């Protein structure tokens, strides 16, 4: 996608906002046992899953919303949320763009979404979408030949209940935290990945190709398992903004890496950030955690966060297996009135475990950006090491950057290093670029990209280019 496309998509239309009335199959607002039973019933789930959801609900009803984050927002009325908005089945969906609600199409038009993307985003039945279908079908064939399972969560419930029962909630238990517990009770769909022993997944798995499961709703659940010696790289999100009317998002992602396995999880998040006065925008309260369960396993989180009004997100690693490695590379950008409280937790349990944290926070406009990170070395973590680098870049006079590093070391042989910096785009750097004939916006983009380089280089190539463009767009007008 070219820069002008994204430009049209993200800035202009987002700035003006858009409202579309779409008829949908939605239950009445409010949450009780009957809603949870209804969701589970609609999905035809086995008993164990219903029981699990009900335990989560009972637990959630005794919990209180946490307020320790560096975030300010209007209270969320959980009784005003509708917890089930049916994702339309592909067969019931529109057969072609001609059958799609014209208002939705008008919205895409306004956003400048490319034609071939519109059909996919509008949920046109797979067979009617020419562009991505053939590609996706080929991909599915290659994956199944390799023995990789990659499907919507609800499909996994039907086809792979044993795997699900074995792994679901083992990294993020249903008691974990307010939002994860809520998710456990009411999640509707998400992704499921299983890579069998010794298999290197033959391609990057992207939600882009996860057909039929686009409308996963506000409570998404993802579970990825890399069995012994397996490797998988998973890409979440897309730089094109997705239409979404739900303000609260509370997703859960669980990763399990067994012995010698590796999981690389990359995210580009670009949900509606609200307008320039801070009205509207997605509240994104996400729990992402991976467990390096086996020896020599490795989990890497790379995220580029440019969207959402509120981001509350700490992709973490539990380093249980000896010699296991956890990595977290993050770029978080806030502009206008966006707020982000994001970081990671590295829990070192096994001997000789290693973790690296590189966080780049960029604050513009009235944006507030907080890094919050925990590095914990348990008594068993002999010879464990962590390196943390945490840099903030401020633009303009009203933005803010905050750093909250928590370090707990209970093993004397463990080593923890923390480096932090806060800087501004200097007049010197800007003038240097201008003097070389490079315009202000390009110069700022260049300097900011340079600042983020160590994170971008962790992204898969194509994603990195998108992320860079997206960053440019989200910071447009931030200087000058």
């Amino acid at each position, binding site marked *: 996608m070219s820069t002008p496309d994204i430009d049209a998509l993200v800035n202009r239309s987002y700035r003006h906002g858009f409202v579309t009335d779409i008829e949908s199959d939605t239950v009445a607002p409010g949450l009780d046992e009957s809603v949870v039973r209804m969701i589970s019933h609609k999905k035809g789930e086995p008993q164990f899953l219903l029981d699990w959801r009900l335990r989560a609900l009972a637990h959630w009803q005794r919990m209180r919303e946490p307020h320790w984050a560096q975030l300010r927002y209007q209270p969320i009325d959980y009784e005003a949320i509708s917890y089930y908005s049916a994702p339309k089945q592909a067969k019931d969906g529109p057969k072609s763009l001609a059958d799609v609600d014209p208002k939705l199409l008008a919205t895409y038009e306004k956003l400048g979404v490319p034609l071939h993307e519109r059909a996919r985003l509008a949920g046109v039945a797979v067979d009617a979408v020419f562009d991505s279908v053939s590609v996706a079908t080929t991909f599915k064939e290659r994956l199944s030949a390799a023995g990789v399972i990659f499907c919507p969560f609800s499909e996994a419930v039907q086809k792979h209940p044993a795997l699900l029962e074995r792994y679901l909630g083992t990294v993020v238990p249903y008691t974990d935290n307010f939002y994860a517990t809520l998710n456990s009770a009411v999640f509707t769909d998400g992704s499921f990945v299983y890579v069998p022993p010794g298999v290197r997944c033959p391609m990057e798995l992207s939600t882009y190709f996860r057909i039929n499961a686009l409308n996963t709703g506000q409570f998404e659940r993802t579970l990825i398992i890399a069995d012994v010696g397996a490797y998988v790289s998973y890409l979440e999100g897309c730089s094109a903004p997705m239409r979404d009317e739900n303000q609260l998002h509370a997703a859960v992602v669980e990763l399990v890496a067994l012995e010698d396995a590796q999981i690389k999880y990359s995210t580009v998040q670009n949900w509606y950030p609200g307008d320039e006065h801070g009205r509207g925008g997605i509240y994104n309260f996400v729990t992402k955690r991976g467990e390096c369960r086996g020896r020599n396993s490795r989990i890497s989180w790379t995220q580029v966060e440019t969207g959402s009004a509120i981001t509350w997100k700490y992709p973490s690693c539990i380093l249980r297996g000896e010699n296991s490695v956890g990595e977290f590379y993050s770029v978080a950008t806030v502009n206008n009135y966006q707020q982000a409280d994001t970081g990671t937790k590295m829990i070192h349990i096994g001997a000789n475990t290693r973790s690296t944290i590189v966080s780049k926070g960029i604050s513009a406009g009235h944006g507030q950006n907080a890094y919050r990170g925990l590095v914990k070395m348990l008594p068993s973590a002999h010879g464990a090491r962590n390196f943390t680098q945490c840099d903030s870049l401020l633009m303009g006079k009203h933005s803010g950057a905050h750093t909250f590093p928590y370090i707990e070391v209970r093993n004397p042989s463990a080593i923890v290093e923390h480096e932090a910096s806060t800087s501004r785009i*200097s*007049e*010197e*750097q800007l*003038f*240097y*670029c*201008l*003097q*070389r*004939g*490079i*315009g*202000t916006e*390009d110069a700022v983009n*260049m*300097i900011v*990209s*340079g*600042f*983020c*380089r*160590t994170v971008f280089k962790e992204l898969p190539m194509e994603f990195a280019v998108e992320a860079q463009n997206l960053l440019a767009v989200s910071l447009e007008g931030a200087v000058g």
Partner: protein
Amino acid sequence: MTGTVETGAAASAAAATAAPAALLDIRDLQVKVGGQQVLRGISLTIGAGQVHAIMGPNGSGKSTLAHVLAGRPGYEIVSGSASFEGRDLFALAPEQRARGGLFLGFQYPVEIPGVNNAYLLKAALNAARRERSLAELDAFEFLELVRAKIKLMQIDESFLSRGVNEGFSGGEKKRNEILQMLVLEPKLALLDETDSGLDIDALKVVANGINTLRGPQHAIVLVTHYQRMLDFVVPDFVHVLARGRIVRSGDRTLALELEKRGYDWVSGQAAA
């Protein structure tokens, strides 16, 4: 009304025939920095292909002159004018001046971490080429162009993939400035104390780079404290700046005389 227009046109036509238009024409330029008057009426004309040296003691205003011409923010132009190829230089944004062929070699080139040296240079070159309605160079064409120049500047090719000035030594930074100049081929290169902090070998390399640019299409202004550089890049004109004024202009021998007699000689004149 019509009469006035005709008079103006006739006058400029007459000026054009009288002498070739100057590349840069500075008239009675007065500049304040932080409320302090730094330039107190500079007039200077630079023709295409000429090499001028501007010398002067610390605080005489020579760096200010270079920066104000390049459009650095923070300078208040109190009065006077500067025209570059007949255009009002001060009406142009810094990047427009650069694309139009004005280059400033910085005394202290800033580091831009993570930004690839070649990437910045390619963006700069293509910005200038767009301005001249020339096709942009792709990565291969660019590399071919740059390779010859880095050899001339005795720079290792790995230099290109490093961050802009990131971790460069003082000498490397200066070579990089001259490399950029050679790639961009400006009509006017203002080199602010490019010689400072260089050992003799590096100075020769840098001087050699500057002499390579020298030619009828390229004017060069060497802003320097010392005469030393002028042994290698021999200027056509030398101007001595003291307390915000040009107190003397002459040829190359002025620089030698200045070295012999010291800046007190001209400073005294400025006070008088």
